[in-house]
């Protein structure tokens, strides 16, 4: 990631915070979080045709609780479910 010298550094701060807090809130070390993400992708992939590179896992706080959001765009439903 290249950080521009001028311009909106507040946006950079915001982006960095979002990434940092996903890790912090998951209470998992980065490698474990990576494994979890792979597991989730594999599970979804058993039922749907998805673009594995284009999946978003976000941990965020929503009115007094922490939630894990997974956003995956589904290409098609798999005919044969393993």
């Amino acid at each position, binding site marked *: 990631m290249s950080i521009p010298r001028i*311009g*909106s*550094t*507040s*946006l950079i*701060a*915001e982006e*960095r*915070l*979002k990434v*940092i*807090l996903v890790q*912090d*809130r998951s209470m998992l070390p980065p490698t474990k979080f990576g494994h979890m993400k792979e597991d989730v992708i594999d599970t979804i992939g058993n039922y749907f045709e998805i673009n594995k590179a284009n999946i978003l896992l976000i941990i*965020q*706080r*929503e*009115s*007094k609780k*922490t939630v894990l959001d997974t956003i995956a765009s589904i290409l098609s439903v798999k005919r044969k479910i393993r």
Partner: protein
Amino acid sequence: MGRTIVVTAGKGGVGKTTITANLGASLSKLGNKVVVVDMDIGLRNLDVVMGLENRVVYNIMDISDGKCKINQALVRDKHFPGLFLLPASQIHTKDDINIDKIVDIISTIENSFDYVLLDSPAGIEKGFESAAAPAKEALIIVTPDVSAVRDADRVIGILENRGILAIALIVNRYDYGLVRRKKMLNADSIVDILGLDLIGMIPEDKMIIESNNRGELLANYANGSIANKAFENISRRIEGEDIPFLNFKPQGKGFFGLFRREE
């Protein structure tokens, strides 16, 4: 029965003690009986910020150890008759704290005051635990930077797990000019990221430094300062009033931006 509120942050140096003292003053100015409690056992500072260091006789650990009564340890403020300080001990360490006893002491004080503000030490260890244990509400202080917001997020998680769900956010050292030029985190973004209600922003104001140097509180020393206005507004919001947020905009070509209310 009074409200017990912990003022906390996670990160050090964001202004917990200054904010506790000045909020105490403005809440008492509104007619409330207020105790501000220094929970930073071993590193007390609230007495110094209020300029009461020479009047400290007993402290909260003396009450806890049975060496004095609560009333003997409370120090009345120089200017605000409704404001009291309960100092921390300087000779004990956090390990000496008996959290159950602290909770008992605070719940006794709660019965005869409108507000008990607990100034939490930095960190998430025992000192923080003992400041949070008696509280039913929390004020989280952040400065608009990545480390302070990150630490605040951690503290919010811990408070919520303890069942403290009434948590509001104060953004301190807020520079409206930098925010406008997108060189400082915007309060709205911090609110979004942390998922808390904003109760106020405190602008950078040299009067805070000057009053601190003198051991005076803004409500007395710099009553007309913009920072004091911010404290007044936060106090009134704590009291349940609906006060619009200040919006600072530079006017004309002068060095000093005058402030006006947001439409």
